[in-house]
């Protein structure tokens, strides 16, 4: 159930990035896509058949029951991937916003349909 919702969020972001005319909204659309993928990655870490409430953080302490741990602990690797991906997303968004500001200085508008110097 939760995976299709995640994919729906991805499609919403894609739709927003492809159809909106305001450059800032396009950047927001890109960010929504990023977050949908990040969410998907985190969800991948959960073991099959374990509900969200039962899942454990992947930390082994002296008192941890190892059998229980192997059954319920989430996979820590996707979380590490998400950290990297968030940082990359931050870089892209920062650059995109910087370009938007420059575009506004040049054209005096955020409307993409009025920025049409390139043709052919």
């Amino acid at each position: 159930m939760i995976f299709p919702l995640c994919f729906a969020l991805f499609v919403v972001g894609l739709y927003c990035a492809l159809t909106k005319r305001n450059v800032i909204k396009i950047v927001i659309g890109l960010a929504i896509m990023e977050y949908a993928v990040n969410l998907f990655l985190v969800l991948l870490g959960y073991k099959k058949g374990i509900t969200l409430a039962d899942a454990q953080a992947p930390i082994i302490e002296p008192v941890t029951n190892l059998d229980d741990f192997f059954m319920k602990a989430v996979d820590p690797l996707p979380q590490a991937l998400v950290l990297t991906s968030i940082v990359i997303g931050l870089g892209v968004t920062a650059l995109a916003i910087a370009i938007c500001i420059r575009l506004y200085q040049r054209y005096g508008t955020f409307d993409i349909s009025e920025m049409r110097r390139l043709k052919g």
Partner: protein
Amino acid sequence: MIELLPLFIAIPLGGAFLITLTAWKLRRLADILGVCAGLPLLVLALLCIGKQGVYHVGAFLAPLGINLVLDGFSVLLLVIVNVIGFMALLYSISYMEQYTAKYKYYALFLLMVGGMNGVVLTGDMFNLFVFLEIASIASYALVAFGCEHEELEASFKYLVLGSIGSTFILLGVAVLYGLTGFLNMASIAQAVASMEKTWLLSFASVLFLVGFGIKAALVPFHPWLPDAHPSAPAPISAMLSGVLIKALGVYAITRVVFNVLGATPLFGIIIMVLGVLSMTIGVFLAVGQWDFKRLLAYHSISQMGYVVLGIGLGMFIIANNGPTLVAGMAIFGGIFHLANHAVFKSLLFLCSGSVEYQTGTRQLKSLGGLQEKMPVTGTTCTIASLSIAGIPPFNGFWSKLIIVIATVLAAFVFPGMLILTAITILVSFVTLISFLKVLRYVFLGELPSLFKQIKDSPFFMGISLVMLSLLCIGMGLLLIPGLRSVVFDPAVEALKQGLDYGKQILTGF
């Protein structure tokens, strides 16, 4: 040699860091540091020819750690990236004098080179994504480098489409991880070889196809390229058209489809169709252009179609258990054209940069008669134009010839392939027409009185033009069996082995 592999990533990243740290006051220091970073990369890349091996980063072994893989196909791309990168760096010394903040340019340039080296070397899917983003972000910034109306607009378009592509790739990596439990390409290949084919695997392939297709500017995904490539400064156009779309797009998709997901007949057909569409649509859009660099950019789309067609044909034949000799020939034609296109297209972009540097315009109609004023640029541009159009002694002819022969041979087994032969020859002919137009309007004809005073390209620009044109003339020699078996055969073998790639990486060469 294998121990030195991390240097391909460390030198450009370190160079970029040093330049931003030290060179903001001294303009010359940025030039010196830039070339000092490019030269060892060039030497190292040339030393890698003929070598194979795996480097385990931090000594963590394969499924757990990240590994850098040097095989035939990576070596080829590594050499292309670093040779063209060094030429573009030399060219930038004079060309970038017109811009302020030269040190930022060099820093971004080196980041881009580092990212591309990482993409071609890495053996890990997520690491591939990270390096791809390093190279892409640097290139978004470089396209906007002039900060004028057109550049910002092109860069924004490129950024939006590029990040959509990257997000698709990341989603593909995530699906693949969920499916197999590995991120290492070799381990994924083994897992895929032994598992049942589900719809999720096809879903991941489609995500990769769209993502890398956007990066490679194949035809339905191409609209950013004709804006972004002409807007960048000339050496960057040369890098973008010459190597970026190959390293991030064609290399990555070829590697993923052949060695990670496994070639299927359907995928071969899809890739061939994309190739044919790119070839024809790209070339017909190019003929009507009057902006020098925009025309070249459309030709990039068209020529990448040749590369993708060759590789797709090879994939189709292998997946259908056709004759492997013909498959090998098609793949060889594809990657040989990839190498040739890197050389002549970057040379053409650098020539257009020289023309723009001296005359201040790139509209074909307002130029003319530059051959007598700019003999070096004119001659090298003529050589490159003849190469791209496929005129015999130059390199473009040989690779196109091999692709044509491969389609004819494939037609003996799969009769429909003859139509590909016809299309390749037709496109080559239209390319010739379009470049005769360039030569006629830029270098022949009457010199406008405005340009009576212009001179030829400055020294550093001229020297990289001459070296690239020598490569254009000389690369036909790579067909000699002795040279071919060192440079291209390992690359073809690396692709032809398909999913056995995983076994080879995990057990060592």
